[in-house]
């Protein structure tokens, strides 16, 4: 690793004042530290958010669940009252990754194979920052790109409780990242189907959403032809394979919801 300075502010305002173009935020470090170890980045200062208590915790808030940005995957797996969200968090990486990695870090990073983006978009969550509230559909922009401005800090993510939801992932057996992951949810605003791992960035499968709105059953997805255009192709899976997985996993998610 290159040299850097390290700061651990105890308030959000102090953290915001320390952020500039040469510094980066440090949450669980399970994306950032491997990147620094490979010398793929050279920040001057790391601003560690771990001492800001208000950024941590799983808080039911009426019909919503607010999860602090610094809440670890393990805490979400144990405490989230939305079962699909708890099970998604419990399937991230391995126990050590879940003990350190945070929802804020994962969402801010927007890795194309990360799990949380499927939950945020599928459950129609809101990403709250020290400046504003950003709806899920506007937050994830492109490969590793989000709507966050430079230096903007995620404070929490609020998930409306769905009527029912399920997340299915076909994971990479080495890293457990999603080769494809699909969140299907029945929400107050209709059926949502969010796909991660398959493309450069999480996306909604609107054709499936329309079909499931009419008939919420695996059968309703049978005749949908998922195009491989624009999907990822790598040593793990071809674009065609991923296209097929989207349908298989969506059907399994619907079947699980229907019990």
């Amino acid at each position: 690793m290159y040299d850097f300075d390290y700061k651990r502010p105890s308030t959000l305002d102090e953290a915001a004042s320390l952020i500039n173009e040469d510094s980066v935020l440090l949450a669980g470090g399970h994306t950032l530290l491997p990147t620094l170890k490979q010398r793929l980045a050279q920040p001057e200062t790391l601003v560690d958010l771990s001492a800001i208590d208000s950024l941590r915790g799983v808080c039911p808030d009426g019909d919503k669940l607010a999860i602090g940005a610094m809440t670890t995957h393990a805490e979400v797996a144990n405490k989230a009252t939305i079962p699909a969200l708890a099970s998604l968090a419990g399937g991230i990486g391995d126990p050590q990754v879940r003990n350190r990695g945070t929802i804020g870090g994962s969402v801010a990073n927007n890795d194309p194979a990360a799990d949380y983006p499927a939950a945020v978009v599928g459950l129609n969550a809101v990403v709250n920052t020290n400046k504003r509230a950003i709806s899920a559909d506007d937050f994830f922009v492109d490969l590793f790109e989000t709507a966050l401005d430079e230096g903007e800090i995620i404070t929490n993510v609020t998930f409306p409780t769905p009527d029912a939801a399920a997340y299915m992932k076909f994971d990479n057996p080495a890293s457990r990242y999603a080769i494809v992951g699909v969140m299907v949810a029945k929400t107050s605003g209709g059926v949502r189907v969010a796909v991660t791992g398959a493309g450069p960035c999480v996306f909604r499968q609107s054709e499936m959403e329309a079909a499931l709105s009419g008939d919420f059953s695996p059968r309703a997805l049978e005749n949908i032809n998922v195009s491989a255009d624009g999907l990822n192709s790598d040593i793990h899976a071809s674009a065609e394979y991923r296209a097929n997985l989207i349908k298989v996993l969506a059907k399994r998610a619907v079947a699980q919801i229907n019990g």
Partner: protein
Amino acid sequence: MPTVSMTVNGKQVSADVEPNTLLVTFIRENLRLTGTHVGCDTSQCGACVVHVDGNSAKSCTMLAVQAEGAEITTIEGLAKGSDLHPMQKSFQENHGLQCGFCTTGMIMTAVDMVNKQDNLDDASIRKGLEGNICRCTGYQNIVKSVKAAAQEMEG
């Protein structure tokens, strides 16, 4: 250089470290506790697992400064004198190791797993060991070791 203080295996330690010092480097080079290993540079192998405030963590993917004020347990902190921890004993008795490189991390992960989950079956033990890679054993005897120790520790 910032000063970092933490408790390691029950002892208070304090040192000046560069901010880019990894926790595993601090443990191995400053404290000379070399039972914690480094097997990769991609955060995947688990040879470096220690407990941080009672949770297993990869010490190669934490900075020493992030452990300020924390309670750390390394493999050297498990045995009581010459009395091995039940998990260590079980790996010995069930031939849960060959070269031994992965073993200290395996044991630290396994102890955390047994502390947090009851009635572990083979499938949940394998799931719990997903962050630890062994190049020798084929895992059969590792799973056997963890299961036997779990029964001993719960019993």
